């Protein structure tokens, strides 16, 4: 499954390091002692763990559209398919137990040749086997690459299409040759496929649609249908630290937050990983624990510089003025205050990982400042004839911005109402026009027919690959049939070049410098105004289960480590 799973994990992507200052997970007092490692005092191994799953996969093929859902990864694939590199609890890529060591420049695992090609060498753990006893070999790496490219309806070939060859002559060594340096290499091969089970045809569109027949993970699939998913331990799993402690896991669909909360409250399930919901802090009481940590999506204001309905150019000064007109701490409080205490303001640039070394406080300069707003606008000829009114430009246009978001999304509509009140005294007005999700995301956004301002969330990536978003040639236009993904129509050649350079720089330190350089440019140009990271949340019944909470922020989802969970005897 390779790139598809990698892409989906990235889509699901990533929350913050839970140990990062300002983003520490919040756990309810009753659960504080229960989070993390199993409590040996009141729990035991064995038993059945019952979990609620929010979005039920329609099918589970790891390469095709079936996998076009985060929950397909979280509830199914992540538990069966082995990875070469994997994210640890700080969302940093490390070698999985399938590898003998992580490929580095020092150990010869990463080599950029004089002809510009890039060679990546994986040394596989000889003890690793599929659940049917077949060894996991470099042929599986080769097969996963080919299946990612050859399968009808494959979801993504990004990265895989740069591979020119995989030498799998040695079963325990896979030597991958790329046509050019490819820095996001750890995101590839995040779900290996068994060649002996699925091959020899590398188009696997018709296979594994409703059943994962062989596992290379801690679990074996006993049953999967539209009503339940049953996992049993893979007792022959080579990673002894991840042999499951319970006898069976049953996942059942509960497709809204109220249903999930009720299911945990009634004891019908033991844990749920719902979307954070307003009032969570008050509603989760009694024997229930919950843990909240920065999660997979960042929300912010997108500024469309090519908005067809704009009344004036969205110049850099105007964009900066808008950023200085906002009290983002207050916005974060209104949006997330009932879910988590003191929600932090996001200070990273759009799409960069919102955690770890990638994220710097480049946007911290933007605090509400009326003087700055006036200075920036006056520099471009805006005036404010009525001191209590709106700014007006030389053509007589008032500074009123059309603003779109998803209709009936209470959090975002609350933010809109707050911002309207917040910026009125500073002379900036808004015209709120909201749409249903399909209209906004499938019709208007790809065609740059929005705004000039829109509020919505986007996933962040564990890997800082952002070339598509800031590529000048990727601005959607009629000429390119609106296939580009530079959705802010941001034109800065230096930023565009840097974004591509980040993808080609395999030296981690040099890459980090490039990321920071790009971040500073983006903070100055303000194509996007970050507001906050949407939190992830896990809820569990402390009388029934021990162990949840360690992977709340992970792109692998809060159920990733169920192999470490235990259920309490009745």
């Amino acid at each position, binding site marked *: 499954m390779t790139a598809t799973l990698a892409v989906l994990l990235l*889509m699901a992507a990533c929350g913050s390091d839970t140990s990062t200052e300002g983003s520490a997970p919040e756990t309810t007092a009753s659960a504080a002692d229960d989070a993390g490692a199993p409590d040996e005092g009141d729990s035991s191994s064995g038993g059945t763990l*019952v979990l609620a799953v929010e979005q039920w996969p329609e099918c589970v093929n790891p390469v095709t559209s079936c996998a076009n859902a985060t929950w397909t990864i979280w509830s199914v694939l992540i538990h069966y398919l082995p990875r070469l590199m994997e994210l640890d609890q700080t969302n940093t890529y490390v070698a999985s137990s399938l590898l003998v060591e992580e490929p580095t420049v020092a150990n010869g695992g990463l080599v950029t040749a004089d002809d510009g090609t890039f060679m990546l060498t994986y040394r596989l753990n000889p003890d690793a086997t599929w659940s049917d006893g077949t060894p996991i070999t470099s042929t599986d790496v080769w097969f996963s690459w080919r299946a990612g490219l050859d399968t*009808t309806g494959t*979801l*993504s070939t*990004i990265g895989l299409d740069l591979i020119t060859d995989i030498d799998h002559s040695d079963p325990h060594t896979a030597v991958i040759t790329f046509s050019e340096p490819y820095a996001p290499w750890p995101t590839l091969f995040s779900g290996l496929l068994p060649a002996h089970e699925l091959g020899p045809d590398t188009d696997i569109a018709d296979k594994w*649609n409703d059943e994962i027949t062989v596992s290379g993970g801690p679990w074996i699939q006993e049953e999967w249908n539209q009503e339940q998913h049953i996992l049993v331990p893979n007792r022959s799993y080579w990673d002894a630290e991840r042999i499951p402690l319970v006898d069976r896991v049953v996942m*059942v669909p509960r497709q809204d937050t109220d249903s999930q909360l009720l299911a945990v409250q*009634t004891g019908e399930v033991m844990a749920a990983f719902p979307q954070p919901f307003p009032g969570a802090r008050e509603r989760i009481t009694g024997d229930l624990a919950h843990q909240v940590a920065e999660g997979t999506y960042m929300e912010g204001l997108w500024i469309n510089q090519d908005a067809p309905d704009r009344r004036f150019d969205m110049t850099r000064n105007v964009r900066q003025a808008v950023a200085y007109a906002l009290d983002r701490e207050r916005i974060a409080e209104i949006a997330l205050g009932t879910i988590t205490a003191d929600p932090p303001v996001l200070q990273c640039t759009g799409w960069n990982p919102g955690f770890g070394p990638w994220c710097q406080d480049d946007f911290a300069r933007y605090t509400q400042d009326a003087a700055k707003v006036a200075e920036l606008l006056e520099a471009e000829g805006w005036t404010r004839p009525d001191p209590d009114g709106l700014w007006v430009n030389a053509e007589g246009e008032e500074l009123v911005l059309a603003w779109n978001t998803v209709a009936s999304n209470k959090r975002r509509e609350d933010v809109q109402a707050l911002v309207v009140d917040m910026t009125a005294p500073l002379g900036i007005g808004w015209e709120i026009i909201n749409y249903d999700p399909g209209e906004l995301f499938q019709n208007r956004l790809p065609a740059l027919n929005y705004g000039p301002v829109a509020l919505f969330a986007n996933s962040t990536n564990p890997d800082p690959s952002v070339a598509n978003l800031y590529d000048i040639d990727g601005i959607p236009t009629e000429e390119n049939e609106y296939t580009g993904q530079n959705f802010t129509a941001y034109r800065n050649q230096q930023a565009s070049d840097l974004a591509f350079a980040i993808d080609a720089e395999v030296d981690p330190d040099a890459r980090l410098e490039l990321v920071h350089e790009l971040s500073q440019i983006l903070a100055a140009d303000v194509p996007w105004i970050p507001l906050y990271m949407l939190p992830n949340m896990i809820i569990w019944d402390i009388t029934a289960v021990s162990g949840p909470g360690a992977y709340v922020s992970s792109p692998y989802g809060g159920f990733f480590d169920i192999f470490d969970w235990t259920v309490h005897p009745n």
Partner: protein
Amino acid sequence: MTRYVLRRIATMVPILLAISIAVFWAANRIARPGGDLAINPRVSPADRADYFESLGLNDPFFVRYLSWLGDFVRGDLGTSLVRNGSDVWPFVRTALANTLVLVSLAVVLSLAAGITIGAISAIRRGSFTDYVATTVSFLGISIPVFWLGLMLQLFFGLYLANWLGITPPLLPTAGLYSPGQQGFDLVDRLRHLVLPAMTLSLQLVAVYSRYMRASLLDVMSSDHIRAARGRGLRERTVVVRHGVRNALIPVTTQAAVDMGQLVGGLIVTEQVFQYPGMGRLFVNAMVGGDYPMLLATTMIVAAAVMLLNLAADLFYGVLDPRIRRGSR
């Protein structure tokens, strides 16, 4: 009669065609499978184009519609766009069976309770019992289904279980069967039907009891009831044999019409109770832009509504000879 039935069935064809075009248009307008890929920077434009091509989504609207229609008239409901080419029919068949079980149970229970309550209310017109029944009926009709469902879930799933100190609760609040259940267990299935059936029934009981009350009052004041009493029949015989029997006609025809509508109208109840029926299938298909699935569910529901309406009309004629004579 046969010509009448055939004529009614023939009129269904253009209606179904119109419905299919409308649904097809709406489905394409609202969502398309993988539409969110357009804003995913990790999926390249080329991959996206290939993906849509593999689903046949690059063809013009009417080409796709006519392709679907051609399959449909040949009895092929098509393949799902989001289930990787799986046939639609098995999913629809399962959902339809689940919904029919729920609807049938709810309608049967509602008819039994509604007819009884309505009859008692009519016979004891103006009594305390009548006032209570009438008031409760008003409440039953007024309560939104989603609210009632949630209240039943909270009461039986949470509060009652807490008071009794029972975990898990006596009545499950969601799903088709208990987590981990493998194989068919009738008792377990029935337990999971209780709350959704109760939710549906409470509203239907209110409707049927009011129908029954009004109908029985009307019948009991008619000439043939006076004639029956004049012949010296016992009041019990008059009420049951001549009153209730005739009063049942509008209630049962209404039930037949309700059955048709409920087959596709359980969206709220099925969502609240996470019940895997036609309503939930419809919602998931709509959200995912899976128009073959959407069209299959819609056409089946539309056909069911029309056929059951026809059945209701025919049934009415069977029960009331005056109507049968009038149709000649």
